[in-house]
């Protein structure tokens, strides 16, 4: 088995990052979202980007086939931003497609073949009715042995949640704390699909009810709101609506270059110093489903390559497709011991002002989860935070010199982890 101590043949730097707005955009196809992200990325390159410098493009996408009836997306994204005849390759590992596309960009530069690579991710999900999105997402599970049992994709994470609750004797409060935190962060992110805290959301709903002469709900706190089945209906016990990331259209782009030429693009690059990827069997055959084995493998590889420990990481964007996933992620990454992720969330230790801020962007939960774009979008947040350009949500009380992105595919069949350094 691969030793995590292996090094890449060359150093890698991120010199540009951008994203489209995340949300529901009726008229936009994936190609249009991708252009939005590309233009935003191009603007972020301090010394400018001549697009003919780009030598190859990797695109993360889960299933434009199912969502748009459109396959072979990579050369089309290249066409729409003017990059043909560049090699254009789509990479798919379900919800980890974006993070794995980033990893292919890393390997491609390290191989010596390229110096400048565009990494993108895109998903256009809102064309389909919710039932069909549910079926499309279930394609990320084992359709012959998991979906066949009636499991939806939220249902599989919900099953992990029941095992987690049983193992550690917990109720659903920790999940709700994750939702409250991530919506609070997303409220500070103008590109987020839900650019509002739950507090503001519930107040707005009370105002609306009052204005319409309807009965005004009696929610005093976010917990009141989340405990009200009318406001927060069950999707798949114990996961309720606000435990689930939304259905989202969006795209994100990164410009990756060989470290030795980073100075041509910016004097403030991020160095990509750790990369890890692991796979796992389907959920049903794993002996312990309160942890994600591929995440532990990927994290170990990334930490070893980077030569850092989990305790060195200042901020992390983790894969919170469901609130339970964030709790497990913070344990798999070594931030907290098994079962302690829930406690940490309850105690606010992962909030913006906590010891280990998680998902300052709002996470997939509030920023939105355009599946194939999410892993790339995580790095866009890291780019902004590490460069001090995160606007209202910028963390100002610490030196963010090390950050981590954790992107999960399926129920953990894939996980990819990247670590970034700013000197």
């Amino acid at each position, binding site marked *: 088995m691969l030793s995590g101590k292996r090094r890449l043949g060359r150093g890698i730097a991120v010199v540009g990052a951008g994203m489209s707005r995340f949300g529901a955009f009726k008229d936009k196809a994936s190609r249009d979202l991708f252009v939005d992200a590309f233009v935003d990325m191009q603007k972020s390159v301090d010394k400018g980007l001549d697009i003919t410098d780009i030598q190859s493009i990797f695109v993360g996408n889960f299933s434009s086939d199912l969502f748009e009836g459109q396959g072979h997306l990579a050369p089309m994204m290249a066409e729409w931003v003017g990059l043909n005849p560049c090699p254009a390759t789509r990479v798919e590992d379900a919800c980890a497609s974006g993070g794995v596309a980033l990893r292919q960009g890393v390997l491609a530069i390290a191989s010596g073949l390229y110096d400048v690579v565009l990494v993108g991710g895109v998903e256009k999900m809102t064309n389909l009715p919710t039932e069909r999105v549910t079926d499309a997402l279930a394609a990320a599970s084992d359709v012959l042995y998991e979906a066949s*049992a*009636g499991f939806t994709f939220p249902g599989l994470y919900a*099953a992990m949640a029941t095992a987690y609750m049983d193992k550690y004797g917990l109720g659903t409060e920790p999940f709700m704390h994750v939702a409250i935190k991530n919506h609070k962060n997303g409220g500070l992110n103008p590109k987020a699909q839900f650019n509002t805290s739950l507090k503001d959301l519930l107040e707005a709903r009370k105002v609306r009810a009052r204005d319409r002469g309807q009965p005004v709900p009696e929610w005093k706190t976010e917990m009141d709101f989340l405990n009200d089945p009318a406001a927060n209906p069950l*999707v798949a*016990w114990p996961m309720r609506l606000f435990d689930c990331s939304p259905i989202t259209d969006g795209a994100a782009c990164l410009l990756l270059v060989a470290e030795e030429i980073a100075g041509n693009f910016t004097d403030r690059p991020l160095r990509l110093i750790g990369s890890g990827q692991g796979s796992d069997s389907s959920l049903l055959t794993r002996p312990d489903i309160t942890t994600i084995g591929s995440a532990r493998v990927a994290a170990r590889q990334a930490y070893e390559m980077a030569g850092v420990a989990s305790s060195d990481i200042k901020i992390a964007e983790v894969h919170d497709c469901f609130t339970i996933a964030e709790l497990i992620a913070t344990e798999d990454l070594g931030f907290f011991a098994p079962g302690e992720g829930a406690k940490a969330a309850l105690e606010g230790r992962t909030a913006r002002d906590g010891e280990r801020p998680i998902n300052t962007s709002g996470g997939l939960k509030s920023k939105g989860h355009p599946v194939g774009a999410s892993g790339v979008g995580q790095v866009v947040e890291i780019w902004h935070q590490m460069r001090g350009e995160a606007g209202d949500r910028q963390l100002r009380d610490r030196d963010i010199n090390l950050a981590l992105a954790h992107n999960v595919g399926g129920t953990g069949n894939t996980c990819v982890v990247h670590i970034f350094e700013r000197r």
Partner: protein
Amino acid sequence: MAEAEFTAAAFNRFLKEGKLMAARCRGCDSLALPPRSLCPNCHGSDMEWTPLKGTGRLAAFSCIAVGSTRMVQEGYDRTNLYCSAVVDLDEGVRVSAQLLGVEANRPETIRVGTPLKADYLDQDEEGKEAALAFRPQG
């Protein structure tokens, strides 16, 4: 006797006969469920079909309000939930199946660890694939 291929198609045909079958490695005695033709333990390829007792315990579950298209067609919805489960079988392997005989609309009453036994749905219905289900024992 030649073994049936270790495919989901064969697994489902066994279900239709009321049998829950796994693949067993003749080399190292490991069980593989889902069945497959390469042993997940020793990587050998000398597998055979073997019956399982169909008893076990509830490892994890979800009571699902927003169901898959197939389950919605079967009449489940936000007011009539169904329960999908991961089951620890007594032989030490796991399987996913629908969980019947529980109050799916009251998920807080369902306990991880509950002893279960297998049930075979649509076994007698022509043209319909058999489905595996479990129910609480006793």
